[in-house]
């Protein structure tokens, strides 16, 4: 048996949810992940490389650089790690269109505080302060489909059909250890 009983128990452990300093007024949906606290706050959208190094393209890298929000309340740089899609997708493409703007964001601060002194942001909505409507942070897969017109026609979620990922799997397997190791494992995994 590859996946042992202790491992299964650990995988099924449910983190405890908590209210945080920025939870008031948040309409964020809970994801049930470690250290999760709803967080609604305002701040300036920044390209983190620019913020740290002074290398600052005008468009914040157009989604090619990791993004953050410098929170108005305390000047903390909050790293936006995740968008609102449950599909292995980040936040950079969601925030880049708001480069340099002051926005109100809603989402969850996330992170096991035994592992990290700072939490990361899972962003769900963005609203420029001069706008009334919020923008949902869920466009990543739509952009992927535009960038991969052939792959998008294949049935299944993006991560199963992304050409770059599939090329690496074809080369070194799902485990990354070569096709022979993969074949032996897969035989046992699906027994």
């Amino acid at each position, binding site marked *: 048996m590859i996946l042992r009983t202790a491992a299964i128990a650990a995988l099924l452990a449910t983190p405890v949810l908590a209210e945080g300093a920025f939870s008031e007024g948040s309409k964020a949906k809970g994801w049930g992940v470690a250290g999760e606290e709803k967080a609604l706050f305002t701040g300036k959208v920044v390209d983190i490389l620019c913020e740290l190094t002074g290398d600052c393209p005008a468009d914040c890298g157009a989604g090619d650089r990791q993004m953050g929000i410098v929170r108005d309340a305390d000047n903390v740089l909050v790293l936006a790690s995740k968008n609102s899609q449950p599909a292995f997708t980040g936040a950079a493409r969601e925030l880049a269109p708001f480069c340099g703007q002051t926005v109100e964001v809603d989402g969850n601060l996330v992170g096991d505080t035994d592992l990290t002194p700072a939490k990361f942001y899972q962003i769900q909505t963005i609203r420029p302060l001069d706008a009334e409507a919020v923008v949902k942070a869920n466009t990543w897969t739509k952009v992927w489909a535009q960038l991969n017109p052939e792959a998008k026609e294949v049935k299944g979620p993006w991560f199963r059909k*992304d050409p770059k990922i599939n090329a690496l799997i074809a080369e070194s397997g799902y485990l990354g250890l070569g096709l022979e190791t993969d074949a032996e494992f897969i035989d046992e995994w699906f027994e």
Partner: protein
Amino acid sequence: MTISGEVIDTWCYFSGVMGPPDSVTGSAHHTCAMWCAAGGIPVGVLAEDGTVYMVMKWQDETGASGGGTILSVQSDSVTASGDLYERDGINYLVVADVVDNSGLVNQNHDDWGVVPPYAIPKSAKP
């Protein structure tokens, strides 16, 4: 500054969404790590002392598009040189050069299987 460690998927590592930290590293989590890197989730380097360095740039690649070299080094054990910035509790790493890449050293799939279990589709079985 030189950092040695395993290239990891930081969302799964810190959020616990797929399981405990040890289960979302190495060969057990290799496919998911590629998914997350390609999806633009920040990649990290997990050092032996448990410190995670958030990669903002990997040589010439800025990282958030996830499609280049940074995708091909997921789960590898590397030594990288570059600049380190600490801000508000997070260590940010700008990698200038990969001094060494030992490949995928953390072979933990016998302990954890694959995480998540659907990382390998049933269609992969001949």
